[in-house]
């Protein structure tokens, strides 16, 4: 009889502990079946979307024919970013994978479990100081059961300046990060476009001092691109501005208010899109008007232009 009591007690204890453990687990983790990550208690039988389909069980001698698994539908991306930088892959504008580039700036990442159809993939990277590159998009038509390789990707360099306003005649430093030993072309737009060349160091860092004597007073825009051995050439990256005036003002290091980021999480993604979509073609509230002025185009309404700004600064 004692053994029965002990057994019942143990069963109850197990059920209770299991339930409490599950509650604790739910609180501490955010496992989602369908998030593309096979983790925690997810298995091929409980979550085939993340963990893939279960392999056929071997042995048994039941005489059943072995059906080989269908070939995987996959896209592989490879190329160069910045040494040890985080590279983010977006699938139809939502984060699908991230990886860290090697010291040589090379990276490779793949995405599987796709359907046949047209996808818009996009890649961006962040340099050692957290500056983001521009988005590089790849429309890819995926074929069922085939592996598609997208190679030779070269993410455009990041760019920044040390002064927001520079006294005409003084130098302004234009710098950023790219792949190691890459040829960097810096463009400064004025009435005439001015080009400068430099080479990034072994960490991919580049810096060029521009003598502003050649520039007129006013706002100027600068951007950069990189090439390696004239074979691998990036597109131009983000465009930033600086002013040539009568005084020199150092650029503040405080984080800039990022355009398109409506919920202050330093990202521009579906949440921000949804907030803007809520106000689309509606009279915006006084509270939102301030944010619209600061982070969108500031015309007091939400229309396609605001979404275009958001799409440019998109991070996923």
């Amino acid at each position, binding site marked *: 009889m004692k053994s029965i009591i002990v057994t019942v007690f143990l069963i109850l204890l197990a059920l*209770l502990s299991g339930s409490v453990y599950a509650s604790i687990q739910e609180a501490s983790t955010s496992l989602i079946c369908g998030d593309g990550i096979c983790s925690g208690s997810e298995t091929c039988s409980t979550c085939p979307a993340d963990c893939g389909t279960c392999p056929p069980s071997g042995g048994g001698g039941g005489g059943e024919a072995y059906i080989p698994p269908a070939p995987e539908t996959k896209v592989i991306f490879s190329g160069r970013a910045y040494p040890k930088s985080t590279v983010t892959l977006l699938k139809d504008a939502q984060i699908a994978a991230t990886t860290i580039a090697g010291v040589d700036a090379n990276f490779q990442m793949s995405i599987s479990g796709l359907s046949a159809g047209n996808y818009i993939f996009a890649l961006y990277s962040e340099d050692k100081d957290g500056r983001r590159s521009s988005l590089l998009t790849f429309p890819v038509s995926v074929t069922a059961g085939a592996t598609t390789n997208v190679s030779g990707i070269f993410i455009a360099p990041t760019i920044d300046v040390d002064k927001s306003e520079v006294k005409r005649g003084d130098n302004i430093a234009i710098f950023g990060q790219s792949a190691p030993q890459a040829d960097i072309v810096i463009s400064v737009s004025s009435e005439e476009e001015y080009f400068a060349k430099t080479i990034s160091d072994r960490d991919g860092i580049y810096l060029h001092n521009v003598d502003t004597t050649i520039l007129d007073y006013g706002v100027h825009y600068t951007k950069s691109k990189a090439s390696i051995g004239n074979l691998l050439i990036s597109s131009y990256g983000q465009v930033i501005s600086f002013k040539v005036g009568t005084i020199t003002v150092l650029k503040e290091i405080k984080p800039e208010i990022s355009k398109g980021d409506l919920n202050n999480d330093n990202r521009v993604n579906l949440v921000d899109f949804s907030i803007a979509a809520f106000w689309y073609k509606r009279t915006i509230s006084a509270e939102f008007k301030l944010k619209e002025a600061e982070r969108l185009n500031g015309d007091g309404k939400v229309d396609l232009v605001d979404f275009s700004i958001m799409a440019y600064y998109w991070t996923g």
Partner: protein
Amino acid sequence: MQKSKLQFKIKNYFFAVSVIFALLLIAVPVFAAEIYFKTDSTTVRPGDPLEVLVSLNTEKEDINAVEGTVLFPDDILKLENINEANSILTFWPEKPRVYDGNKIKFAGITPGGYQEKTGLLFSITFQAKKEGAGIIEIKDSRVLLNDGQGTPTDVKTPNFQFSIFKEAPISKSQILVSKEDKDQPEEFKPEIAQSPEMFEGKYFLVFATQDKGSGIDHYEVCEGSKKKCVIAESPYLLQNQELNQEIFVKAVDKSGNERVVTIPAQKPLPWYKNYFVIAILIIGLIIAGAILRKILWQRFIKSR
């Protein structure tokens, strides 16, 4: 006198020709993006389907936002379906929907930009009602550059002319057997968010995915149980603001395939507030009590 008149005329002609040549030399080729219609056939029989693809040629421009209104003659065409599957536009401030019986308004964006000649925006399937000729056109179109400022670019919108008559060759879209879509919608990650500017700062849910086969038909949100679902659109104001229950988001495509994503409770109940745990405890206590009673009863009998 006549000679001077002739000289004057020659001078004028020379001047006019010079101006034309100068203009030709100065003229710079103007690139304009184009929203155009693509179809298998411009002639159909009454009762036949007419599938029209609304597409974008960016003309080497980097484009990230498009909007417009498609106008069609509803006296000879019946709108059957609008499909956004495989669109280059990933998010829609305004999904293509019919208004006033003969207008389809749309506005969409492609984050990061797009620079190709054959970007599908969406497809429209009509059914030819009766014999006649008509045009499908685009009005109020805007195409914006991916430059961080939403700069508009020039846009061309050629009309699509079609005719419906009994002797028309059988259209390809009628011959083609539509491919069965067995794939679930794409994986997605719904997010719970909060913004002081909307829903009075209450928690809401955002979600979006795509279906490459037949397109997304609708979404359902189930709070607490998969049996309590409502058809929903993003952003969705959560009913359970305590966030102490699981949320299930179901994406259903036009072929009926579903993908369900589970969001765990963000603030789960402590174990002593969990009805399941309490029920187990009560059952356990009842069983333990019964066993104890039996033991005591047996001892009592033995002692007698």
